[in-house]
């Protein structure tokens, strides 16, 4: 019977001198900052540009920064997703005139999708930073 080669084992070496907890905290605060902290500067810049552009586009399309509403259980998930964008979300809530978006705008639904996607992207970046910092991903 022919033996198949085993896939290479993932590196379990942590990134030297870098705490996984600091990495995920930075990753949540500012998109890409966790990767920058872990020494992946080019990908950090690319991730930051993509997430920030998606979030700003969502705001300009007059999407909604969700908050939890009674009797609307899906708003719990949407709020969790939007809060994934970290400081972007907080700054937008503080400094935009209408965090609830404009439901009458033709681009409202698109704006919501963009804002949710930006938050979810950053949540994935947090998980990715954790995997890199703990050596699960090279």
């Amino acid at each position, binding site marked *: 019977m022919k033996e198949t080669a085993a896939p290479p084992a993932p590196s379990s070496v942590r990134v030297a001198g870098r705490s996984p907890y600091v990495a995920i905290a930075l990753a949540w605060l500012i998109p890409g900052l966790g990767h920058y902290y872990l020494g992946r500067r080019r990908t950090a810049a690319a*991730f930051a540009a993509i997430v920030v552009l998606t979030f700003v586009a969502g705001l300009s399309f007059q999407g909604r920064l969700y908050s939890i509403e009674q009797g609307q259980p899906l708003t719990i998930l949407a709020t969790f997703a939007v809060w994934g964008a970290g400081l972007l979300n907080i700054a937008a809530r503080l400094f935009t005139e209408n965090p609830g978006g404009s439901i009458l705008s033709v681009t409202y639904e698109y704006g919501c999708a963009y804002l949710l996607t930006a938050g979810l992207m950053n949540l994935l970046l947090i998980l990715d930073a954790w995997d890199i910092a703990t050596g699960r991903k090279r």
Partner: protein
Amino acid sequence: MTMLALVPTDHFLIMTLYALLVSAFFAILWREDGRERWKLFGVLVAALVGGGLAVAWLMYPFPK
């Protein structure tokens, strides 16, 4: 001219921009090699834009 006037309202343009951003994100996240990244980016853009157009075409007989 206000900034609001610069925001596109064309559905196809907004959908394509979304596809480009999402595809770039996952191509960088899932692939390390530059060539492989571009390949995945192309596949994802084609799938998202093509899928969107296909669904729109299928829904065309059912406007309401």
